[in-house]
């Protein structure tokens, strides 16, 4: 099922929010292989789906170790969708960007790149 009907999609640039903002938090472990991959994949996803930068936070657990405990994060990389409800947890390198986008409830990008389901 492509696209979620309950979430607001972004259209265009930041500032034009029409509903609940998306908040993502990515937990990584420095430059560990999986974490590095996840960072890259998330960057790609953000670009493709035009997620505003401010909506995405990257937490380096190696710099702030106890943060992971506080948030209940055990493995890295872990991507938390904090808003809108419900909270989603995705672990792993976020290799399949489309699936991740689906889970996050992001619409297919309406960019010149064409429609990807």
């Amino acid at each position, binding site marked *: 099922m492509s696209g979620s009907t309950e979430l607001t999609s972004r259209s265009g640039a930041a500032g034009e929010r029409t509903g609940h903002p998306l908040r993502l938090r990515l937990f990584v*472990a420095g430059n560990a292989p999986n974490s590095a991959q996840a960072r890259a994949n998330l960057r790609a996803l953000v670009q493709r789906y035009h997620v505003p930068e401010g909506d995405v936070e990257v937490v380096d657990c190696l710099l702030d170790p106890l943060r992971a405990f506080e948030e209940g994060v055990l*493995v890295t990389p872990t991507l938390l969708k904090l808003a809108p409800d419900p909270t989603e947890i995705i672990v792993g*390198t976020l290799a399949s960007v489309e699936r991740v986008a689906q889970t996050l409830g992001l619409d297919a990008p309406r960019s010149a790149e064409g429609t990807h389901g």
Partner: protein
Amino acid sequence: MSASSDHPPVAANAVVTSDASRVERGAIEKAQTGISGFDEITHGGLPCRRTTLVVGGPGAGKTVFALEALVNGARHHHEPAIFVAFEENSRQIVANAATFGWDLPALEREQLFFLDAQLPAAVVRDGPFDLVAMLAALDAKVEAMGARRIVLDGLDVLLTVLGDPIAERREVYRIQEWLHRRDLTAVITAKSDAGDRLSSERYAFLQFMVDCVVVLQNRLIDRVALRTLRLLKYRGSSFAEGEFPMVISADGIDVGTFAAPALAREAAHERISSGLPRLDAMLGGGYFRESVTLITGAPGTAKTTLAGAFVAAACARGERALFVSFDESGSQIARNLRSVRIDLRAPRAAGLLEIYAVRTEARGAEEHLVHLRRLLDTQRPSVLVVDPISALAKSGGQMAATHAALRLLDAARARGITVLCTSLVNGADALEETTMMQISTIADTWMQLAYVVHGGERNRTLTIIKSRGTRHSNQVRELVLGDDGVTLAEVYAARGEVLVGTARWEREEEERADERRRAADAARRRAQMEHAEAETTARIAALEHELEYRRAELALAEDEESARRSQGSALRRQRLERRGASAPAQADSPDDDGDAGITRAPAHG
């Protein structure tokens, strides 16, 4: 992979001299767990700064074991610790452990940190992931707390989450490396599939990787749950091999092993009464204090009676007693003993006697042992009766029962308690059966009760088979239970047979008759003798009388003679005077005229 810690690696066998928890020096060091019995069979505890794997089926006690090791490290050795819970929620674990009385909340404030690491169910996986951040966080926590011990409880759950065997192996190595780098004494628990093996290949590598493997099991034997603990491996150390019975008691885990024998105790010299004076006489005064007495016999041979007599005697001295009954209830025992004049109600009411009646089938022998040991500590009796100790074998097998029985006797001795146990013997060969329980070898006194059938009657006999430190007769005695109490009677051996009961009474009657006869004979002879004596005395008296009489006669005759003589001379003088005074006095001629002169003598005027 980077680590925030720059703790330098420590050489494997470095001797740390400052910590009190280290037991062995020079060889591999051990961290005491404080788990009853475990430190003994491992000769010191868990390998220090190494990883121990505890495997077992569901409910085998892995979490309790790991937690207790942490708690004791914190409480007794001031070693802060972290408990990472992958499977069960930490609040649940803490709540379940409340029964043990470890005061976890107090420990949690400073020494113990619980981390809930259960991966939430609804997690989307997309690509590989690792435990780097978790270890970084743990690292920071270890640093902050100064933790020395750590538990990873339910690691198999975490590994399952990882998904593929390669990732599992990689992450486990990562964990192991970190543990090593941080010099943590670690306990990892993992569920095993079937029996005692981590049969699946996925976890087999775990066993090879760690330094020590403990296997916990919870088996059903004869419908009784029996827990066991076994050391599968322990690198760099000797350890007690084999399976040990284990119990999860009210204070925690109790691994069944013999306490270090208290050989330094002086053997007691005081003797206490068995309750039967004649038995005391046979035993040189009674049972030795702190000794073990075993009474074996077929059902109905009055073992319980002897046990009751022993207890009654102790309470009469004001001592405390514990009567453990596996067969009958306290009131039954009291009632039965009352019929032979043994009163248990009074000491019970006075609080000196505690009767603990329980059916053995309800629990395993090990559980009974733990219960009984606790009773010994709370009741503090000076004498203990276990009636019958052979009943322990009803619950879960002979071996476990023997083990538990021996350890119970051990525990009693260590507390200076005098023990009397009875044992049921069904077969004809009592020696064979009891040796199976091995109690007869450690018992100081062993008496056997049996039935003797003779002349249509069954009577009870008692034989002292052995009594250390006492010269005892090996003669059989008859045990007589009557309305006026319990006593021992001599038996008669006639033509190789032992006579008891009516036959004995008959023989006794015979002997009494003989005795009477002999007494009568003696009396008769005495009477005869007296009679003869009297006769002789009388005769002597008579003869003496005669003698007296004769003497008197003789005296009389002599008197007469002298009287006659004096009279005769007087007459002559008178005659001469009458004849005329001039006539010279003629010699008196003794003639018979004196008498004839009577007719001529003048009449006396």
